[in-house]
C-alpha cells in the first residue's frame, strides 16, 4: 500500500525541512519527501494548509496494564494517543505488578502486540517492586526489550543503590529516567508550597523535595559516567541545576509536561482534584522558567505524564485524591497554544521536542524524522483548529483532566502508524 501526502507543510527538523512538500509512503517506510511527487499507484491524502510531521513520541505515559485495566489499557491508551497525533509512547512500570523482571516485560510485550494501535516502548523499573532496595536484572530486562528504567512515582532513596543502578544501566547501554522527589520533604503534601497552599490550607510539597534529588541524581550520573533523563521537571531550581550540568558536559536530558508549562498552582483554588499532580503545579515564576528552558534547550522533551485515574479516586477530598492527570489528548494543543502561539518556539523546535529528541534519547533511529527509509509514523496536523475538550469525547478510559471544558487549538487530522492510517478525523 502506498500513500502520497500532497501539498502539506512538512516540518522535519532532522532534515531541516520546513516547506510545502509531498511525502510518499511505501509499505511501512517513508519512500521520499520532495516537491510535487507523482505516484499513480498511491492513494493521495490532501494536506493543503496542514502540517506534516514525524509522528509524536510521548516518552512518559501510564497505560496501567497490567493490573489497573479499570483506569486504562494498552488498547485505550494507544487509541487516545493516535487520535492526538502520537504514534509512539513509553509506558511506565508502576503497574500491578510492577514491570521489574524480564518475564513481566515479555508478558506486557505480548499484550502490546495483541492490542496496541500505536508503538509502545516499555520502561522497566529500576528496583524490585519500585521500593528502592534491590536493583532489577538490568541485563535481562534490556534483552527482553525495555528502552529505559524508572521507578516513576518514587525516587530511589538510597544514593548507593542509585549509583549502582546508573552503573548497570551504562554497562547495558540503557539509561535511567528518575522521578525526583524526596518524600521525606514532600511528606503528606498535596500541592506546591506557597501563597496558594497557605490560602487553601493544604499541605505543601516544597520545591526542595524535587531539586535536591535532581542535583543528587545528576551528581551520581556524573560519577557513574552514565546517561540520565530527568522526568517531569517542574521548578526553576531544578532547571538551573540541569542547565549548569549540561554546560559542564554531563550526559543529562530532561522533559517537561504540558501541565507544568500551562497551569500554575492557582488552578488548585476551588479544590478540583484533577489539579492534584506529582510534581505539583508550581508558581508563575516556575512556569515561566520551564517555558524558558524549553526554548533555550535545557528541556529536551515534552512528555505528557499521562496518568489516568478512576472517578472514585478523584471524587474525594483533595487530601485523599490520587496524584495525576491524563494528558495524551491535550499535550499537543497545549504546546501549540502556550509555546507556538506565544512565539516562544518555532514549529521546528516543537517537532524536535515532541518527536525527534525523544527518538534520539530512546535510541529509535528509524523514528523522529521523515528521512527516506524511516518508519512511516506520520502526523498531519490542522494547526489552527479550535475545539472544546469535552468529557464525553475523551478517548482515554479515565477522564481526570483539569482541561475539560476548555477550548484548545491544534489537532491531528490524520495519524499514520507504520504506514497504516491509525486515525482520521
Amino acid at each position, binding site marked *: 500500500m502506498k500513500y502520497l501526502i500532497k501539498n502539506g507543510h512538512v516540518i522535519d527538523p532532522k532534515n531541516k525541512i520546513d516547506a510545502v512538500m509531498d511525502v510518499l509512503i511505501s509499505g511501512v517506510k517513508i519512500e521520499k519527501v520532495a516537491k510535487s511527487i507523482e505516484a499513480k499507484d498511491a492513494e493521495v491524502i490532501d494536506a493543503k494548509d496542514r502540517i506534516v510531521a514525524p509522528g509524536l513520541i510521548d516518552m512518559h505515559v501510564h497505560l496501567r496494564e497490567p493490573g489497573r485495566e479499570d483506569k486504562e489499557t494498552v488498547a485505550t491508551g494507544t487509541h487516545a494517543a493516535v487520535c492526538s497525533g502520537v504514534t509512539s509512547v513509553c509506558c511506565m512500570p508502576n503497574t500491578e505488578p510492577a514491570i521489574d523482571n524480564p518475564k513481566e516485560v515479555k508478558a506486557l510485550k505480548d499484550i502490546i502486540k495483541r492490542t496496541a494501535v500505536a508503538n509502545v516502548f516499555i520502561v522497566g523499573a529500576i528496583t524490585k517492586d519500585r521500593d528502592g532496595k534491590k536493583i532489577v536484572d538490568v541485563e535481562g530486562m534490556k534483552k527482553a526489550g525495555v528502552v529505559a528504567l524508572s521507578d516513576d512515582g518514587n525516587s530511589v532513596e538510597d544514593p548507593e543503590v542509585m549509583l549502582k543502578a546508573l552503573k548497570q544501566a551504562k554497562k547495558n547501554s540503557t539509561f535511567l529516567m528518575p522521578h525526583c522527589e524526596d518524600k521525606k520533604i514532600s511528606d503528606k503534601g498535596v500541592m506546591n508550597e506557597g501563597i496558594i*497552599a*497557605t*490560602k487553601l490550607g*493544604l499541605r*505543601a510539597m516544597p520545591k526542595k523535595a524535587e531539586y535536591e534529588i535532581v542535583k543528587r541524581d545528576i551528581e551520581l550520573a556524573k560519577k557513574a559516567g552514565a546517561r540520565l533523563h530527568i522526568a517531569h521537571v517542574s521548578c526553576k531550581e531544578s532547571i538551573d541545576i540541569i542547565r549548569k550540568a549540561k554546560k559542564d558536559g554531563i550526559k543529562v536530558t530532561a522533559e517537561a509536561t504540558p501541565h507544568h508549562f500551562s497551569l500554575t498552582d492557582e488552578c488548585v483554588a*476551588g479544590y478540583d482534584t484533577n489539579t492534584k499532580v506529582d510534581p505539583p503545579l508550581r508558581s508563575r515564576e516556575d512556569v515561566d522558567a520551564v517555558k524558558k528552558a524549553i526554548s533555550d534547550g535545557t528541556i529536551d522533551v515534552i512528555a505528557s505524564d499521562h496518568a489516568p485515574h478512576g472517578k472514585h479516586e478523584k471524587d*474525594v477530598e483533595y487530601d*485523599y485524591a490520587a496524584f495525576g492527570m491524563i494528558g495524551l489528548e491535550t499535550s499537543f494543543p497545549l504546546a501549540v497554544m502556550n509555546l507556538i502561539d506565544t512565539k516562544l518556539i518555532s514549529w521546528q523546535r516543537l517537532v524536535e521536542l515532541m518527536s525527534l529528541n525523544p527518538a534520539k534519547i530512546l535510541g529509535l533511529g528509524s523514528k523522529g524524522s521523515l528521512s527516506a527509509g524511516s518508519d512511516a509514523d506520520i502526523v498531519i496536523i490542522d494547526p489552527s483548529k479550535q475545539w472544546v475538550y469535552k468529557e464525553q469525547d475523551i478517548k482515554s478510559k479515565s477522564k481526570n483532566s483539569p482541561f475539560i471544558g476548555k477550548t484548545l487549538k491544534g489537532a491531528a487530522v490524520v495519524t499514520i502508524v507504520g504506514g497504516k492510517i491509525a486515525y482520521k478525523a
Partner: protein
Amino acid sequence: MPEKLAWKRKDLLGIEELSKEEIELILNTADSFKEVTTRRIKKVPALRGKTVVNLFYEPSTRTRTSFELAAKRLSADVINIAVEVSSVKKGETLIDTGRNIEALMADVIIVRHNCSGAPYILSKSVKASVVNAGDGWHEHPTQALLDIFTLKSKLGRIKGLKVSIIGDIAHSRVARSNIWGLTKLGAQVTVCAPPVLIPPGMESFGVKVTNDLDEAIREADAINVLRMQFERDNVSAFPSRMEYFKAYGVTEDRLKGAKKHILVMHPGPINRGVEISAEVADGPKSVILEQVTNGIAVRMAVLYLVTHAQGGAI
C-alpha cells in the same frame, strides 16, 4: 447599607469568597437574632419543617452544640452524624454520604472536616445548603463571623481597629477566616507566632507579621488567641508547653503594655497555661464567653440566610 441587599448563596463555605456587604448582612441579621436569644421563649418558627444535619468528621462539642442550638431555636429538626475519621478510607465517600443525607430530605448540611476544601467538594454534589463548620487548616467562617460580631458589639466598629491574631497561624482555619473577614471590613490585622508557625506568603494576605508577642499586644484593640495544639506532629519546633507559654502565652504581665480597652478573644477550647493564663481568660478583658453566646445568634443568621437564599441561588 442598602436595605434590600439580598443573600444569594446556597452555601456558606468561607469568608474569602464573601463581599464586605455580604459579611455586613450576616452581622446585621445576627443582631436581630441576638434579640431572639434574649426572649422568654427563645425560639422562632422560621425554619419549621426544615431538616438540618450536623455532619462532623472531627470531634467537636462546642461548634456542633452551637449549630444545633441555633437550628433548634429556628424550629428546625436537627440530626447529628459523627463520622469516625479512621473509618473514612474503608467507608463511603464524602460525596456518597452527602447524597445519602440529602435523600433524607435534609435542607442544610453543616460539615466539619479534617480535610481542607471538603465542604467545597460536598457543595458541588448536593442541592442542600452546605455550611462550613471548619475544614482542615482552611476556613471556619462562622467562628470568624462570631469573633467579628463580638468585636463590633463591644467596640462599635471594625474599620480602623487593630486586631492581633496570636498562635499557630500555619495550621489555623480560625486565623485564615478572621484575616479575610477583618481585612475586608477595614481592620488592621497583625499575626503573631514563632517563625515556624507562620505559613509562607502570609504578608500577601494584607497583614502584618511579627514574632514578638509584646509588639502584637502593644497597639492592639483586640487580640484573638488561638488554641495551641501540641498533638500535631509538625509543631516539634517548640519542645514543651511551658516553653511556648513563656514566649507566647498571654498573661496579665504581658498585657501591661496594652491599650486599656483591649479585648481578649479565644475560639476555645482554652488550654490554660499554654497559650493564655487562667487570670486573663477569666479576667475583665476577656470576652470569651460572650463569643460563645454570640455564636448562636450568628449561626441562626447564617442558617436563616442560606435557607432563604433569593431565587437563582448560587
